[in-house]
């Protein structure tokens, strides 16, 4: 995993830990939403926490197909890049 992916992973672990009230070290890239007993609303709460923390916007459509923590990483990277793009404009 590259450094920015690792950084995003830490953000996601933080958000999942907060949303699911569980210890950070219990969450790995391969933890699935099913393992966490997550439904679509929990995924929305994780996205909400990340948007707040990073000042980004995660489009709703992106959340639909995510089933593991690992799959969330590229979505978050894109959202952060979009924000940086906006700043440069």
């Amino acid at each position, binding site marked *: 995993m590259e450094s920015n992916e690792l950084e995003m992973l830490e953000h996601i672990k933080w958000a999942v830990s907060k949303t699911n009230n569980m210890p950070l070290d219990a969450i790995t890239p391969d933890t699935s939403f099913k393992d966490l007993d997550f439904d679509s*609303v929990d995924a*929305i709460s994780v996205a909400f926490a990340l948007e707040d923390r990073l000042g980004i916007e995660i489009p709703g*459509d992106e959340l639909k197909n995510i089933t593991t923590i690992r799959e969330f990483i590229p979505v978050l990277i894109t959202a952060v890049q979009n924000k940086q793009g906006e700043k440069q404009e």
Partner: protein
Amino acid sequence: MTNRVVITGLGVISALGPNRDSFWKRLQNGEHAFAPIEAVHAAALRYPMVAEVKNFKPEDSFSFKEIEWMDRVTQFAVVAAREAVRDAGIDSSADGKARFAVVLGTSMGGQTTEDAGFRDLYENKKRVPPLSIPRIMANAGASHVCIDLGITGPAYTISTACASANHALGQAFWLIRSGLVDAAVTGGSEAPLSYGNLKAWESLRVISQDLCRPFSKDRNGIILGEGAGILVLESLERAKSRGARVYAEVIGFGMSADAAHMIQPSIEGAARAMEAALEDGKIARDEVDYINAHGTGTTSNDATEAAAIRQIFGETSRRIPVSSTKSMHGHTLGAAGGLEGVALSLTIANDILPPTANFTAADPECDLDVVPNTARPARVRVALSNSFAFGGLNAVVAFRRYDGQ
């Protein structure tokens, strides 16, 4: 004592127009009312599309003193109730006013007043105005309808989110059927387009970016609307005695609770509410010719509702036209069953099915005849109006055509 119950008056204010006729005309044309919001700074919203009542001037309908006491949600309720009572051609304040009920639905109550008052308190360190509480309370609409129309019988407000007005309609129906009252003003009102409330809906991610497309494969959420839909119900005996025009008869009411999830709908819960309405009205399944769907335009609601309809009606479900007028007037939450009850009354009385607008492509998950985009002539014997609320509280009302028998 069991009375038959008929609909003799209709009133509506919505994004489609200020009254019943404008509402019905645009429903028949399949025209939606969605546009970026004007009341709130649209650029501050991720999902700016709404179905907004435009050009509404409270001073055209109310005195300065009345406006002081009324939130927008109450103004809508009273405007639509006045139209419905006028349409029924009755004097609700005459003898018998104590046997007249008012049962209204609302989900959010005086949201606009609450949002503005608390913002002033938190941000501007101002005090909250003295009439805030009587403007915000959810029963304000029912109270003002009683005051305005001189009605002194049983009156209350039901709040079951998106099913509020259907629960109210069903209760009003039962009050008359059981003989407790002779007539009722019922339906619902909602004015949910305050900045705070819109931001809360935004976070929940159920709002469409562009249009509400119920049952369509590319549907992507609801669009919030505002307004009020009000019906006057009477015992058939009372209606006949004064030679009233009858739009349709109310014949059944069914309720259920999903007891499952706060916002994810359940096939079982929806099916049980429809089944209860059929049982209450002693309706055979093959009598049902049309369903005004809950049809919110979310992925899960529409697929769940379609599955519930299939569960109740089996193979014949493909022959029953099902349309969602929310595709045009938006999701008015606690007013939804009111607007849709008015729409259904006009559907039956005029032999025209309003379409599901903005439909682009069929979804195998919603394998129904959804009357896509174009209204259709049809003689409806019995129809259902579905409402399935957040919180899993469901209410279904059954109407029958009335041919003077």
